[in-house]
């Protein structure tokens, strides 16, 4: 089943950074659709909950050097 989750990243410091995080999240197993917005810092992830582990999302964002907050 498909599920959606949101995070907020307040410390993006350039538009490319948001695109990089978007690409990285898209490569996480089970992620079907992802949108990362530089202007609002909003991260929206649509994923297959039988495959994806939501804990991996926050970790991926952190690995890129940004701080995800629950939204």
């Amino acid at each position, binding site marked *: 089943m498909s599920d959606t989750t949101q995070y*907020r990243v*307040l*410390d*993006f*410091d*350039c*538009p*490319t*950074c948001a*695109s*990089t995080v978007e*690409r*990285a999240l898209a*490569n996480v197993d089970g992620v079907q659709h992802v*949108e990362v*917005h*530089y*202007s*609002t*810092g*909003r991260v929206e992830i649509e994923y297959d909950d039988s495959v994806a582990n939501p804990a991996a999302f926050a970790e991926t964002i952190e*690995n*890129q*050097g940004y*701080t995800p907050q629950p939204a």
Partner: protein
Amino acid sequence: MNKQALTQYYRKHRKAIVTATSGLLYGGGWSLGYLTSFDLASATILILATIAGGYDIAKTAYHEVTNRTLGIKTLVTLAAIGAIVIGEYWEAAAVVFLFSLGSYLEGRTMRKTRTALQELLEMTPDTATVRRDGDLQEIPAREVEEGEVVVVKPGGKIPVDGEVVDGESAVNQAPVTGESAPVHKADGDEVYAGTVNQEGALEIRTTGAGSDTTLERIIRRVEEAQEAQSPTESLIDRFAKYYTPAVIVLAIGAYAVTQNAILSLTLLVIGCPGALVIGPPVSIVSAIGNAARSGVLMKGGEHLERAGKIDLVAFDKTGTLTKGETTVADVEGFGVDDDEVLSLAATAEKKSEHHLADAIVDAARERPTTMTDGGTTVAQADDTDVRHQSVPDPDDFDVVAGKGVIAHADGHGVVVGNRALLDDRDIDVPSRIADYVREREERGETVVHVVRNGDIIGAIAMRDELREAAPGVVAALRDAGIETVMLTGDNERTAAAVAEEVGIDEYRAELLPEDKQSVIEAYQADGYVVAMVGDGINDAPSLATADVGIAMGAAGTDTAIETADMALMADDLERIPYAVTLSKATRWNVLENVGLAVLTVTVLLAGVLTSYVTLASGMLVHEASVLAVILNGMRLLRY
């Protein structure tokens, strides 16, 4: 402090700590090299400074490369590595330190822009007091169910959307509508989550809670608007995609030609697409956020950029420049009793849905059953002894669009309508009646004739009061260099009188609803960028035709919010000059930011080619320009 707390602290302030460490090492290494001859020690410390500040940047650069989103961090990393390779340790450390400092400050200031809206959400209380099983219970606000009654004490914040079922109070609706003056609320009135109950206790039947409230919907829409790219933004984005690889190719080419490593590394640094890509989104996000807090919803950057070019504002008259509450101002019988005129007209008009018909029917109902004279005594709303007249149904009736009605009632043929309808039916208008009509119309009133069996027996004059703010709004727009025009279905004389009272530049009278669209199209063909202001429901087609459609009083009417490019949550005309001038300021702000960015890169490029600018100074100017555009954009938050 235990280890976990320390880790948490480090995580939270990682950027600041990294920047400070790199800065200290850089300062130490530089001083050592400048003051002493311990060159090796100085070099070591500067390399450490580069690694301390550069590790995170390089890591992100690695992700940029693997995700094929080449960006500024890739360029900085290449420049720093290159500088170390050619032995320019000081330059390497300076570039990394300045970049870290710059992005730390940029992240911090952008955080302010990003959280501007969240403050609105924090207005909604977390818990609600509900009446359940006869008891008052305190439960989480998002668990309140539709139909449940919530009790809000004086001074308390309203936790849900709903309808007042008991109590009376003044409610400050600023978070939703941006109006600073409190609004009186009593039985049957709608209230919104996040607004503040100022005076009496209120009991509210819930219509929406949790994420299903007007405030939540507004914020979702505003965020969507902020995320939607404006034409300028998408243009720059497309450009930026090729820009970074192009800068790398240019740097390599420059080295191949000049063999000057410093020059080509400096090109990498100043080629960073900083201010250019950051400027426009900051301006637009700040402007949309500011507007939202003042009760103006902007649909997105594209609409905002278009609104910045508005040079003509068209107002629908009824309900926009006027209060939209038409009332009967005078009834005049010619040879018959005034009351008879009104009651015959009311019967004929009873089944019509036109606002003039409503006014006539209401006036007939409100007349006391016993009339002392033929005057225009109107029953007071609080006079409970008055028995309202009932208005009988007509035998049949037909609407003639834009002209009036033709009906049969009480055995008579009845026509209620304007001069055009009378002319169509070859009904003579005696000069005494024509004089009366002219006199009322010159006061800005709308007059209908009442005809019984072919003879005019009277006339009814109706008035829709002007909003107090209307003349000031028109004047404010003129001061901003914007022309104004009023569109109305009224006849020429009435329209002229109202137009003069408002002080509007131009008016177009006797328009049918579809004519309003053609008027707007005609202005557009003349090269005007036209904004149309209306209530968003009756004039939805003209709002859609205009370059910028502005709907008023949109709180609670989702259709208006859907169709309009801008929606004023409050029914407050005074927001129009604010919204229009904010759009203009935003457009300028975007241009300023793009201009500053291009100018900076041009000056830096000239500096590099003449060897005045090297890595460190290039980075300093570059980061300063990024901060400058962010701060410039953020001015719009306080517009």
